[in-house]
């Protein structure tokens, strides 16, 4: 049976791992390659590296990081942040990344999704969507929640509906949606389950829930109530609140299929600042 995935996310700035609260007040949480190797050993199913400053500072790609990570780990990893051309896809995939996540570029140039999927396969193309809940309109009597897509790390509203955007990305050839709730991100108060479920039920491709994981119940909820295929986590593992094994044991006890290698269960918490 296909396992639900637990994916630590390493936000990268200047070659170091950081995790922000609502994307500001960044804290240093370690060396990306060391941390990646640690998460591989401790049972993470995949890793995601997001160069969070790349989009708005027009930073180059993180090719060197991809190469160094690929040399060390035995699980797939995704690289995102400032990738906007098919050539950048090619270089990063050749460097050892399994998937490339695009966000701003996918909105600026919707053809990029199709081009990349045609050339490298849908499985290599992750479309990241940052969404914020739209405050209910006084005139809106339907009570149906809506979410708006934001760009540039959550700073630029687009006016686009998140569910429709996800559906269009899937039609264009995206292989996966990385869905971040800007409201929940950094709150440690749980994923936006309505948002996650709305998109998971709409698209025929896997959805990774992101933003808001503060405890194991939140992850359980994202994978059950939220119907996500995978959960992205950051602070709760970066700061050693839980180990990957603790999370997976709890998920398995709740009947959620997970990959749990026996030897991972006794890994200590990471030594990070």
């Amino acid at each position, binding site marked *: *049976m296909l396992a639900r995935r637990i994916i630590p996310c390493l936000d990268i700035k200047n070659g170091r791992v950081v995790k922000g609260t609502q994307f500001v007040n960044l804290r240093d949480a370690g060396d990306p390659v060391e941390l990646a190797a640690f998460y591989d050993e401790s049972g993470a199913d995949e890793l995601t590296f997001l160069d969070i400053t790349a989009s708005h500072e027009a930073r180059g790609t993180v090719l060197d990081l991809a190469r160094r990570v*690929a040399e060390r780990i035995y699980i797939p990893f995704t690289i995102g942040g400032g990738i906007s051309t098919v050539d950048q896809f090619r270089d990063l995939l050749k460097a*050892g990344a399994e998937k490339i996540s695009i966000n701003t570029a996918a909105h600026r140039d919707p053809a990029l999704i199709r081009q990349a999927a045609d050339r490298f396969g*849908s499985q290599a193309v992750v479309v990241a969507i940052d969404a914020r809940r739209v405050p209910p309109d006084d005139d809106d009597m339907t009570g149906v929640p809506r979410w708006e897509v934001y760009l540039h790390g959550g700073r630029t509203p687009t006016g686009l509906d998140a569910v429709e955007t996800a559906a269009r990305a899937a039609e264009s050839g995206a292989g996966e949606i990385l869905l971040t709730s800007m409201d929940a991100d950094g709150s440690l108060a749980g994923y936006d389950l309505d948002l996650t479920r709305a998109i998971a039920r709409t698209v025929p491709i896997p959805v990774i829930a992101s933003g808001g994981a503060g405890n194991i119940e939140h992850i359980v909820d994202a994978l059950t109530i939220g119907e996500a295929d995978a959960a992205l986590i950051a602070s709760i593992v970066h700061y050693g609140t839980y180990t990957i094994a603790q999370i997976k044991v709890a998920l398995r006890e709740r009947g959620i299929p997970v990959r749990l290698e026996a030897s991972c269960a006794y890994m200590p918490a990471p030594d990070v600042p």
Partner: protein
Amino acid sequence: MIAVVDYGVGNLRSVAKAFEHEDFEAMVTSDPAVIRDAAGVVLPGDGNFGAVMQNLRETGLVDAALTAVKAGRPFLGICVGYQMMLDSSEESPGVSGLGLIPGVARRFPRRAGLKVPHMGWNSLESLADVRLLEEVHEGDMVYFVHSYYPSPVDPAGGAAWTDYGCVFPAVYCQQNLMATQFHPEKSGKVGRGIIRAFGRICQC
């Protein structure tokens, strides 16, 4: 030395690295002489079946690969590399595979709730007693990314089976021909066990 066949597609370094980390010598190569004389040959692959077969033919490495197989050298196809060992694929009608394993690659059934590509960790069941899997246990999970699955004519070569909408042989072993639909180089400790086993098979 284990030759990782380079026909200009995808990331081959991960495969070579996996052998090197287990102390086996491996080389990413497009030199037919190296492939012919290697202790073992690995045929990786990802992407479109027709495109990768065309690439392999254009690089002139088909004969070298078939020569190594005929000489009885251990041969391991990975992912689309496995599918290339079949006769053909529904992905690219009219394109011939290497014909080492009678059978075809079929698309996963189009059915509600079955997400394609099959992407993520899934389990290996009904393991056969083969050297390639000597470190693998029933139910161990490995990493898959594919939209087509191998469907050999003779199920006897199936050495481990995976269920995703249908049950298919995720591992194939028949004499010196071995293949995995998943990526052992991306499958954590279980994958490393398979890499080690193939390395040992190549040593004798």
